[in-house]
């Protein structure tokens, strides 16, 4: 594989950049693989990469119904953070933060990781108490957290509404300085390029039509481009998990919902942090192109539409304007929707299943993008070793029946206050 470097850039400039290698080849499916990963999004690509890199398993195929990174990997708001209180969530996502910091070097691909910090705003004394507790828990787990009072928040984001007559005045906030954003497509492309160079087949436009399961074991997968014999399958299909679970006669604690996001027209640099509104569900950051990237609540009903309805968007942007009044002057440039695999307790599932050789990675709710490297790393470990790693031990499938829920935010499939 051609290394991306300043020297190769200069060298290729002489030939008008016509002779670069393809970043990955367009593979056709073979008859048999050691592992098949279903879903060519961030998590699937990362899983294949870490299977090859950490476990030396390279006879791997990634099967993708559409195109690489065309699902939620291309539809998120690129926020990366590890500001969790529960140990299982904190350790998992902080492990991911470490992978994010090294990612550009590791993949030889600039993923434009920008650790600009995230501020969760608090709008009452009670919320400040809760944030103090969460911040302390984070620091005990080795994650950076800073509690800000009203004046400190005002210094960092003076454009927020600090006037006296607002419905939800800003009391302060909890900041994780090491959180940030990254270029989402570059993450998918970087993982794809490295996985491909180590021998992984990336097969696009290939839909899974069924599974070959006998006496509780996976024997193969049927696709629109032929049958493939395989003993181990990893499902990384986010919003399509329920559809594939049905083909496996499984019902899972996941519902498929619709989440919208949008960007405004590009403006000059105004916001150098990720900020979340504490009195509702709204988050905002500014992209390198200058667009304000915004998102919020689910549309609230089961959906596979990948496009949203206006009432929810209006509700979300009303919160945005309440928090930062200048947003009302901006025009919306694009809106889009993605389909979320909403687990019942708001935390993901990375686990083995009752079918031998079938591994499940789903339930990412709103937080799939930031988990890309950690999810890939732990899922690869789970598949290769046929046992969960301690980092994803809490993300078990049976926690719902045993009662060990990870209901950190009290979020799940339902927007309870609606």
């Amino acid at each position: 594989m051609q290394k991306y470097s300043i020297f190769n850039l200069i060298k290729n400039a002489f030939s008008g950049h016509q002779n670069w290698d393809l970043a990955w080849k367009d593979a056709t499916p073979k008859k048999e693989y050691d592992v098949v990963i279903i879903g060519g999004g961030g998590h699937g690509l990362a899983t294949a990469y870490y299977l090859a890199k950490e476990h030396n398993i390279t006879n791997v195929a990634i099967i993708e119904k559409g195109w690489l990174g065309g699902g939620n990997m291309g539809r998120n708001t690129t926020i990366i953070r590890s500001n969790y209180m529960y140990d299982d969530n904190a350790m998992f996502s902080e492990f991911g933060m470490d992978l994010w910091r090294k990612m550009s070097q590791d993949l030889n691909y600039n993923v434009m990781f920008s650790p600009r910090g995230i501020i969760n705003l608090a709008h009452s004394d009670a919320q400040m108490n809760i944030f103090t507790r969460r911040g302390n828990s984070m620091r005990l787990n080795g994650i950076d957290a800073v509690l800000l009072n009203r004046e400190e928040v005002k210094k960092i984001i003076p454009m927020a509404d600090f006037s006296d007559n607002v419905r939800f005045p800003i009391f302060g906030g909890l900041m994780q300085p090491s959180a940030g954003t990254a270029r989402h497509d570059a993450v998918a492309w970087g993982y794809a390029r490295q996985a491909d160079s180590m021998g992984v087949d990336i097969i696009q436009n290939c839909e899974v039509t069924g599974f070959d399961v006998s006496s509780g074991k996976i024997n193969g997968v049927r696709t629109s481009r032929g049958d493939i014999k395989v003993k181990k399958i990893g499902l990384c299909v986010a919003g399509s998990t329920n559809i594939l679970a049905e083909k496996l006669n499984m019902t899972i604690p996941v519902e498929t919902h619709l989440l919208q996001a949008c960007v405004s027209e590009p403006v000059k640099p105004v916001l150098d942090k990720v900020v979340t509104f504490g009195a509702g569900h709204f988050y905002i950051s500014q992209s390198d192109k200058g667009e304000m990237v915004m998102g919020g609540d689910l549309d609230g009903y089961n959906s596979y539409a990948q496009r949203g309805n206006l009432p929810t968007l209006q509700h979300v942007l009303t919160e945005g304007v309440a928090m930062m009044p200048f947003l009302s002057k901006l025009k919306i440039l694009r809106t889009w929707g993605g389909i979320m695999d909403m687990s019942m307790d708001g935390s993901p599932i990375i686990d083995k299943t009752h079918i031998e050789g079938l591994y499940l990675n789903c339930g990412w709710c709103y937080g799939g993008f930031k988990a890309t490297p950690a999810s890939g790393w732990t899922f690869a470990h789970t598949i290769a070793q046929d046992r969960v790693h301690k980092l994803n031990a809490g993300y078990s499938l049976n926690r719902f029946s045993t009662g060990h829920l990870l209901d950190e935010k009290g979020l799940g499939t339902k927007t309870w206050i609606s």
Partner: protein
Amino acid sequence: MLYIKCPHCGMRSQNEFAYGGDASIKRPELNIKISDQDWDNFVYNRKSLRGKHLELWQHLLGCRQWIKVERDTATHEIFKTLKANENI
């Protein structure tokens, strides 16, 4: 915008409704032996399929009645609405 025909009030916009999830889920009968799996299926496990989906909505900002709606989860087309005690 979804428009839902409340069987009690007529056609109204989605803003008046709250969503209540899969209407085909039945609470296990009381006073008989219920396995953990049955409870699991009732509380957590969902099919959530693409296509026709029978679901509960509440006309929260109207007559406040719970109703059943048959809707396509891919196209959002609404085929039929029923009173809560009616079956398809």
